[in-house]
């Protein structure tokens, strides 16, 4: 029995203050996520493809864990 994915692809809609970003998931839903301050993630711009890890069962929150390549 497959599990619901918690790591999903998303696109950055807007950068917000305090390392928050508004992103849109592939299913069209939008949410606000934080980014880890790793070098790869220092420059995230609107339009960038990113990988978002959702809080396990709470799909309204999450964090950016990487950029898409």
């Amino acid at each position: 029995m497959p599990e619901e994915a918690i790591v999903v692809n998303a696109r950055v809609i807007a950068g917000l203050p305090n390392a928050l970003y508004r992103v849109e998931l592939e299913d069209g839903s939008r949410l606000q996520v934080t980014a880890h301050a790793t070098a790869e993630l220092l420059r995230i711009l609107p339009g960038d493809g990113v990988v978002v890890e959702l809080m396990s069962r709470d799909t309204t929150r999450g964090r950016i864990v990487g950029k898409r390549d």
Partner: protein
Amino acid sequence: MSVQKSWPELEKMHRACRIVVDTLDVLAEAAQPGVTTKELDRIAHERIQKAGARPAFLKYRGYPATLCISVNDEVVHGIPGRRSLREGDIVGLDLGCVVDGFYGDAARTVGVGEVSEQADRLLKVTAECLHAGIAVCRPGSRIGDIGYAIQQHAEGHGYSVVREFVGHGIGTSLHEEPQVPNYGPPGRRERLVAGMCLAIEPMVNVGRPEVRVLEDGWTAVTVDHSLSAHFELSIAVMPEGPWVLSEPYPYGRQPESHA
């Protein structure tokens, strides 16, 4: 990081996986035109109980049945009911059980009677995707290598892989870390180590990759109603390479009691 299993624990997982795959063999035979999906669920439940195991899906997060049956454009998590199978349908059968606290999980998609050439090709390619994913499971590989192998094979045949559902670690619970996506770049995510157990399960669509979940809260269907197939096996990472846990003891291993 997924829990590494000891050899006695792997033997228990082997027993659970054996029961699941034996039952799937029976169900694959029973999936004939006119049979209801509820009837297949009943057969699965009886076989698992007779084998001294417990169904793993029943009551899992409120799931109401022993078996998941996903017909045609249903991807996964179809709930058994009054629907009768028809000649030409393709039927995903997904089953899990628990033995001595250890889980086994496997799935396959079968044709009912004669199926179209397109359906037959989808089943063949999806089964190949599963084995392509298993083939890279050795210590030192990454979780991303599995998804990459599966995605390459599926997309190479013009199909797409489902993103919303993923394979998973398995052991003393049905879903353990890590998640095992069926797509993505190689060389990423967790490193595989000996003793890890994973359920690898490509879900492959003829059309677009997107799925949506019906009002029952479980059944996932392709948004474009294209056919979808699902194959799954539970494997253990051995120092020598993968062990499909429903297969006989690999790499010259013997049951502990005889050793």
